[in-house]
């Protein structure tokens, strides 16, 4: 076969794969939007559920998901980043560190419900935080720790050795080099990890099932020790409980759309920060 024909077949195959992927992606977004848009009203966004979840809004769940995500990221980002810095920059290279790295990657593969059980045992029971926003947020934080660590590690490793040397050669200490040269250069990659984590955390149901989520609450959570409603769990509840499946299904789509928008808007903020940092560093 001629070379250019082989090449064309290759490219067509890649294009078809890309098109199929896009089809699913656009399909999900269109499907959720078209079904969800119908129920979204001002009341839906600002009120608590009424009449056994068949009327009213889902405001407590929106707020709950927002707070849970916030707690999870506030917990996991500093911890994960510090861990990544240690592993990349300070730890002696060798077998132990490799084992640590492999374990962290494996941690990412643990089913999320296991983190739920862990959260129940540790945060709810042992630390006596109870079924609360704090317990749920921390459980979610542990869930995304591996994601944040591996994204941060990759970002740190991608910082060229040459600029570290440049910094050291000017009489900077290792810590100054990390703080002022390596971290700012790695920040866009770290933020990418955060964006992915936000999506993951906001959508998880299992880790909050036993640690934070309430089936139904009238109002907003009062403190980090309150139980919360959360969008993913609310969707689950709407689809499995209750006596009015039709109405509830419509509301579930509404919740899905809001969850999608919430994740997108938070990610958007992160993307703007990342872009700013990139243009500051690289003048793009």
């Amino acid at each position, binding site marked *: 076969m001629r070379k250019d024909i082989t090449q064309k077949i290759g490219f067509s195959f890649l294009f078809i794969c890309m098109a199929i992927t896009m089809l699913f992606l656009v399909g999900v977004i269109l499907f959720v939007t078209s079904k969800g848009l119908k129920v979204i009203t001002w009341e839906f966004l600002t009120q608590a559920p009424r009449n056994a979840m068949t009327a009213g809004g889902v405001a407590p769940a929106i707020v709950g998901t927002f707070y849970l995500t916030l707690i999870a990221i506030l917990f996991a980002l500093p911890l994960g980043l510090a861990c990544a810095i240690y592993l990349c920059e300070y730890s002696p290279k060798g077998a132990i560190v490799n084992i640590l790295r492999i374990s962290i990657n494996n941690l990412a593969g643990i089913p999320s419900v296991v983190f739920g059980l862990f959260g129940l045992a540790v945060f709810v029971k042992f630390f006596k935080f109870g079924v609360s926003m704090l317990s749920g947020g921390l459980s979610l934080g542990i869930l995304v720790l591996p994601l944040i660590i591996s994204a941060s590690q990759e970002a740190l490793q991608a910082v060229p050795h040459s*600029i570290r040397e440049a910094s050291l050669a*000017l*009489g900077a*200490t290792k810590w*100054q080099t990390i703080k002022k*040269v390596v971290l700012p250069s790695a920040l866009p990659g770290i933020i990418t990890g955060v964006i992915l984590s936000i999506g993951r955390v906001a959508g998880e149901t299992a880790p909050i099932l036993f640690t934070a989520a309430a089936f139904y609450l009238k109002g907003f959570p009062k403190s980090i020790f309150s139980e919360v409603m959360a969008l993913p769990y609310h969707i689950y509840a709407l689809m499995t409980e209750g006596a009015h499946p039709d109405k509830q299904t419509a509301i579930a789509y509404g919740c899905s759309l809001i969850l999608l928008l919430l994740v997108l808007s938070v990610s958007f903020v992160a993307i703007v920060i990342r872009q700013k940092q990139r243009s500051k560093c690289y*003048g793009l």
Partner: protein
Amino acid sequence: MGYKVRIRVENVDFYYGCVQALKNINMNIFSNQVTAIIGPSGCGKSTFIRLLNRMNELIVNSTVAGNIYLDGEDIFDSRIDPVDIRRRIGMVFQKPNPFPKSIFENISYGLEVNGIKDKYYVEERVVSSLKKAALWDEVKDRLKESALKLSGGQQQRLCIARCLAVEPEVILFDEPCASLDPISTAKIEELILELKKSYTIVIVTHNMQQAARVSDRTAFFLLGELIEIGETHSIFTAPKDKKTEAYITGRFG
């Protein structure tokens, strides 16, 4: 000779793991002179100058023996902080390696990490360093732009300016023109000749014409050994060692 010995190297051996990269190096480096280090790839010349500012220590599993004195002070003395040595002995690398920061921040960085905070003083030093590195006229209107937008030659002069800003006593150039075009190379060479008035300069180069053009003394390294060192003029016209002669006449290398 009216020049003062700035760096004295005595019986220096260096090992990467169990591979010996430098064998019993002895030499003097004089102030206000350019000392060129020439030799084929892998002869240990980069290893050697990276020893002078204690950059090689960052390599795991490396060992050094012997002494290097900077103004009579043993730089390997346990009481001496390598960070301080690196401030006093600046380095310009083979590939331009500006920080992904603005032009201004690239220069002010060295001052900042050395604890200089006075804004006006920093500004003054940034300007004077850029002027000394012959880059000021090209960048004076774009100090806030990313340094990565500069051309390769400009980036290398920025790296020189960055090095000058911390006021080192010695500047090490590790093949500073290896990735530059002839015009940028000429500018850097001109700059080196200008800088030797106030600094002690060591330059590693692959380019023998460059060594002949810029240096006062030349050291020829081969397989980790210092074969010959002397006045550049005599090294290039009347080398004492046959190996030096073979190298500079292009019979190997």
